[in-house]
């Protein structure tokens, strides 16, 4: 099954629940199998699979809550108080567990875009196809997501140094 382990990892990050992630992955493959005849040649297969998974997630109870917050994504979300600049925060010193807890705390739309970019190493174009948003929005959302991530890591670093 292509991308199985990675899709499961992504589903866990979205749902924050292992059994919900298993259901989500299973439904994704079922939908992909059913919809495969309509899969267009030349379409990015990975982006297609991730898009099915994400759309399926958005129809779940916890996903619906998230999708409501997406409506206000580009203008409504409060800008985090940034611990600028990025170079001042040497991420290499941050423990893996700290990054994981910061990722958990991020809003889902920020978390997913960081995962698609940094973990899946998708290009902005691929992320745009996966999330169904313009490439310009990918760049702005990614930038806001990273700022929020840095703010969370900075808060943890300050807490640890006290």
């Amino acid at each position, binding site marked *: 099954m292509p991308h199985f382990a990675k899709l499961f990892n992504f589903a866990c990050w979205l749902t924050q629940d292992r059994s919900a992630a298993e259901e989500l992955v299973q439904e994704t493959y079922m939908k992909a199998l059913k919809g495969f005849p309509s899969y267009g040649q030349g379409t990015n297969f990975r982006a297609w699979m991730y898009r099915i998974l994400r759309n399926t997630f958005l129809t779940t109870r916890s996903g619906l809550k998230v999708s409501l917050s997406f409506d206000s994504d580009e203008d409504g979300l409060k800008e985090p108080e940034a611990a600028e600049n990025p170079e001042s925060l040497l991420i290499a010193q941050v423990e893996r567990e700290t990054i994981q807890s910061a990722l958990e705390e991020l809003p889902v739309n920020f978390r997913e875009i*960081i995962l698609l970019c940094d973990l899946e190493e998708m290009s902005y174009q691929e992320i745009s196809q996966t999330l169904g948003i313009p490439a310009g929005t990918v760049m702005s959302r990614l930038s806001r997501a990273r700022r929020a991530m840095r703010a969370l890591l900075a808060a943890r670093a300050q807490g640890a140094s006290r």
Partner: protein
Amino acid sequence: MSCDLWAGMLDAYADDSCSPEEVAGIEEHLRTCPACASGVLARVQAKRMNRLAAMRYTPSPEFQLRIESSLRKKQNSIWRWSRPVWVPRLAAVALALILIVVSAALWTRHAAREQDLAELLDVHVATLASANPVDVVSTDRHTVKPWFQGKLPFTFNLPELQNSPFKLLGGKLIYFEHSPGAQLLFETRKHQLSVFILQDQAAMRLPGAGASRERGFSVETWSQAGLRYVVISDTNPADIHALSELLRTAAGQ
């Protein structure tokens, strides 16, 4: 050129999402600007840490079996509904059924093999496109091999590359079919070659031993001492075979 012109593009550069013209412009600027160069380095490090931290959840083998079984059932039901219903004679129906089942099984097996190999091809391509393609960067096999200690449930030998056209660039840990494996990156005449070393498992659905071409890439694979080796590159098949021979010899030592 002023940093202001490039500062907004450093994220896209680190994310490998710039056009070739932008990349050329940024790289020229980075050669003369330590501030922007360290900015790129910080971004690449942050991405790497995020990647390592985000690889957190692994599906259980039970879940994989369950999902494979339900997919098989679903596939069978699709075949059943698409079966011709007008075949008049029982023998013809039986024959058609046998043909359908056999072709479905063959097709499924072939598709699974194609997909598993396609996954490795994707990993190879993603590695080449990545700003940090390997986790252990070294041309020394005595540095690269020990790096995998404690990370893999098996060990492997790397060949001596002196007097060969190949150069070791490094390696990294990958997950394939829910098991950890090694990806080693080699170079020859500016072509990069990925060597995947995986535990040879019955559930693994890769093509049988031999050389082939997939999506324009040359591929050679074989099993040796309980391990499965897969070599992938866009270089010519003779190079792939030469590196495979070196690996086979090293594995036999």
